[in-house]
């Protein structure tokens, strides 16, 4: 377990990401969530401050009920449908993104760049890749059609000037380029890492630090980022995970499948 924190409390990177992501969700929203950190974050939010939050799964599930300790292995198996409000074909649940019913989707990735573009397809030249990654899944659709929260570990090799392959579009080349490409809605809103929360300048669409986690400096973030970051003004400091958040989260994943 990779633990950090104060003298009295400690948490893992995954726990930190999950708790910070849960705080980014608001009551009444409809959230497209993958398993792991996203699902735990959404469920945590439901139980703490957003009882009217609705979860959608890519496998074709609307408003399921997550049972602590019996988490689904992906968004496509029967555990995902537990006490759902509705199940429907995959194409139709993804269409909710295009129709505009979804407030926010969760993404992770192997790489993210200055404009929030995400790569989950190739490391190296796509024609002769060093690593073939699993690919888009619904990632391209989520990133193209709705607002996105990204949760990932803050490492220099992951935060790069330009991703080697744009699987899921962020603001493309910045400025109005996303809109000009024909993507008329959505876009990355917040990047949550183990060091900070990052957002985007409203005009240039360059990534900037919005808030630092407790005990983290701007230099720490810069040292783990492969490009120059702008700074929001004022720069906030996030509140550390509370006992309540940590306890509730550990109840949801008692076997520490996703929060170890």
């Amino acid at each position, binding site marked *: 377990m990779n633990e950090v924190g104060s003298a009295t409390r400690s948490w893992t990177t995954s726990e930190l990401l999950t708790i910070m992501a849960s705080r980014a969700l608001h009551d009444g929203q409809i959230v497209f969530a*993958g*398993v*792991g950190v996203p699902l735990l974050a959404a469920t945590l939010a439901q139980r703490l401050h957003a009882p009217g939050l609705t979860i959608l799964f*890519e*496998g*074709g*599930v609307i408003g399921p009920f997550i049972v602590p300790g019996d988490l689904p*292995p*992906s968004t*496509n*198996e*029967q*555990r*995902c*449908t*537990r*006490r*759902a409000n509705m*199940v*429907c*074909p*995959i*194409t139709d649940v*993804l*269409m909710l*993104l*295009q129709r505009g019913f979804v407030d926010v989707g969760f993404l992770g990735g192997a790489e993210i760049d200055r404009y929030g573009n995400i790569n989950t*397809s190739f490391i190296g030249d*796509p024609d002769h*890749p*060093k*690593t*073939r*990654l*699993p*690919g*888009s*899944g*619904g*990632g*391209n*659709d989520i*990133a*193209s*059609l709705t607002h996105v929260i990204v949760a990932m570990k803050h490492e220099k090799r992951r935060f790069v000037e330009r991703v080697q*392959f*744009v*699987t*899921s*579009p962020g603001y*493309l080349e910045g400025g109005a*380029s*996303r809109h000009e*490409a*024909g*993507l*008329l809605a959505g876009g990355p809103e917040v990047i949550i890492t183990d060091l900070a929360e990052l957002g985007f300048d409203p005009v240039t669409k360059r990534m900037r630090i919005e808030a630092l986690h407790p005990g983290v400096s701007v230099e720490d973030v810069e040292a783990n980022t492969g490009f120059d970051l702008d700074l929001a003004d004022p720069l906030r400091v996030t509140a550390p995970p509370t006992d309540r958040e940590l306890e509730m989260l550990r109840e949801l994943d008692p076997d520490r*499948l996703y929060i170890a």
Partner: protein
Amino acid sequence: MSGYEALRSETALRNRSLHEKVVSLEAAAALINDGDHVAIGGCMMSRTPMALLWALVRAGRRDLTFSRSIVSSDGDIVVASGIAKKVITSWFSQGIVWGISRVMRHWVESGTAEFEEWSHLAMGLRYRAAAMGLPFLPIRSLMGSDVERRLSGETREMVCPFTGEKLVLVPALRPDVAIIHVQRCDPYGNAQIDGLQFMDIDLPMAAKRVIVTTERIISNNQIRRSPDRTKFPFFVVEAVAEVPYGSAPHECYGLYEPFFRHMDLFAKMTKEDPERGSRDYLQRFFYEPRSWNEVLQRIGMDDLLTAASGGRNVHDE
């Protein structure tokens, strides 16, 4: 003859009468030809027609193209066994919990098998376009991404004549054969699916031919008692094979969960040396067993009963 005229003549020639079409698993596999584009029903680790894939591997079919919404270890099996030359999908790995599939990586990175990547919605709309008898459907994702760029020539962009907006057109994906595993089907091919439906309503309407494997064959009278549960009609189906646990080690909604311990075994066997690992796995679970029951026997009663005890109608709780 235009694309649509070819589609119509082809469809008109299919035997769409109400007749029995029950065959053995092996006979079902024999209906698939070398070089066919085979669409796999279900998604990820759910309702995968694994028994039919087993029969295809054993039959030594060659140069197949597979397509599926999301591919799990079924994709590893078809590339490692050498029956697939290409996989068209939106996501290809064993499953999130096992990391990136070493098998997929080995066969794709070496250029032995091609992995053509679309977005998940694009896959769905490509099947749906074919199901609707249309050459394409418009989509609002893909734009601006390298996913679209890498597919250049496959998609088109258009300016909407009503709104002036840019739209991407994704071409209909019309498989030679769709293979779909369901909970219940009658001898004519009326198929009922419980729980998650994935793309299995569009897929059988899209394909040129459809082969169904089913946990149980039920009578047409039983189908007619709940026609609103029938997900695709008999006249699109060419053959029906009854194969209990036909999706193992993946799940079948309401009946069994994924065989997690067996999936762990597969991941472990293929992690260090994907080539040798898959060879050993295929030997043990594909080539040596002479029947699907023997495959299940080798997977073992413990795994089977654990999966079955986890498989139930989770809505009843």
